[in-house]
């Protein structure tokens, strides 16, 4: 365990938000050939999305526990599916469970890349993604980062609970 002085909370949150943005960028560019930019929170009523697909990953067994959820408009999920699988967009739509699996794997890679960067010296356990579909991604008290993937909004919600008595942040956070 590093003995560095804890970051003040707003700085900590900014640092985590930056690390998450970098993880999304790494995953989207390397596995999905997509472009990622920082983004302001969109007016959700203006986002033309039939629904949003949300994949939530809980992690534990490390010095920190918590969760990370990626919320994607369903059309972006389908675009990512095509990029990942090589599906011809003109062919029949994939079954819903495959699309859910894809969004789960996207979130899994984002979470793993993020935690690996932040906690390289610790083993962590990622639980299987839980997929939900919503009309709009609700704010539920987590920290939220908005990014644009191929110019479509993506919300990343994260929540971290540090271990009791762990007043330090390790160097990666």
């Amino acid at each position: 365990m590093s003995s560095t002085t804890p970051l003040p909370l707003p700085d900590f949150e900014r640092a985590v938000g930056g690390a998450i943005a970098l993880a999304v960028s790494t995953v989207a560019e390397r596995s999905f050939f997509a472009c990622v930019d920082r983004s302001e929170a969109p007016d959700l009523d203006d986002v033309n999305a039939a629904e949003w697909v949300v994949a939530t990953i809980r992690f534990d067994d490390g010095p920190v526990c918590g969760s990370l959820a990626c919320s994607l408009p369903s059309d972006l999920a389908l675009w990512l599916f095509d990029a990942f699988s090589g599906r011809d967009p003109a062919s029949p739509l994939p079954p819903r469970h495959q699309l859910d699996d894809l969004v789960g794997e996207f979130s899994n890679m984002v979470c793993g890349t993020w935690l690996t960067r932040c906690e390289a010296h610790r083993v962590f356990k990622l639980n299987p993604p839980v997929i939900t579909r919503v009309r709009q991604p609700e704010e539920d008290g987590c920290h939220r980062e908005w990014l644009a993937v191929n110019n479509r909004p993506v919300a990343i919600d994260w929540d971290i609970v540090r271990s009791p008595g762990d007043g330090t942040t390790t160097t990666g956070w």
Partner: protein
Amino acid sequence: MRILIVDDSSMMRAMIKRVVKLTKVPVEEILEAGDGAQALALLEAKDVQLLLTDINMPVMSGADLLRRVAEDDRWRNLTRVIISTDGSEARREQAAGLSVRCYLQKPFSPEVLRDVLNDAAATARL
């Protein structure tokens, strides 16, 4: 060469399979399993030369699968590769104790997997 891909995501298995085919490395058969227990059953039934496995999976994890493989002399020549989102140094050190040939962190580039396949194919020919 016969390959076994172990991952609880069918999309990830399909993607790895697609990359394997693109590399043009001669492959006799590609088998798939959704967890470590299914993988063990396939290893019992088929002569596999290359095992590509995830770590975090339900039922039986990749780490438990690799422990079982390491304990059984029948699989001493099986080339073992981890493909996982967990790229921590701690996890890599654990893997080193399980006779793992290499450790790929997701997301990985197709070129890296091609190099792994070429290496495994060369070993299988020995």
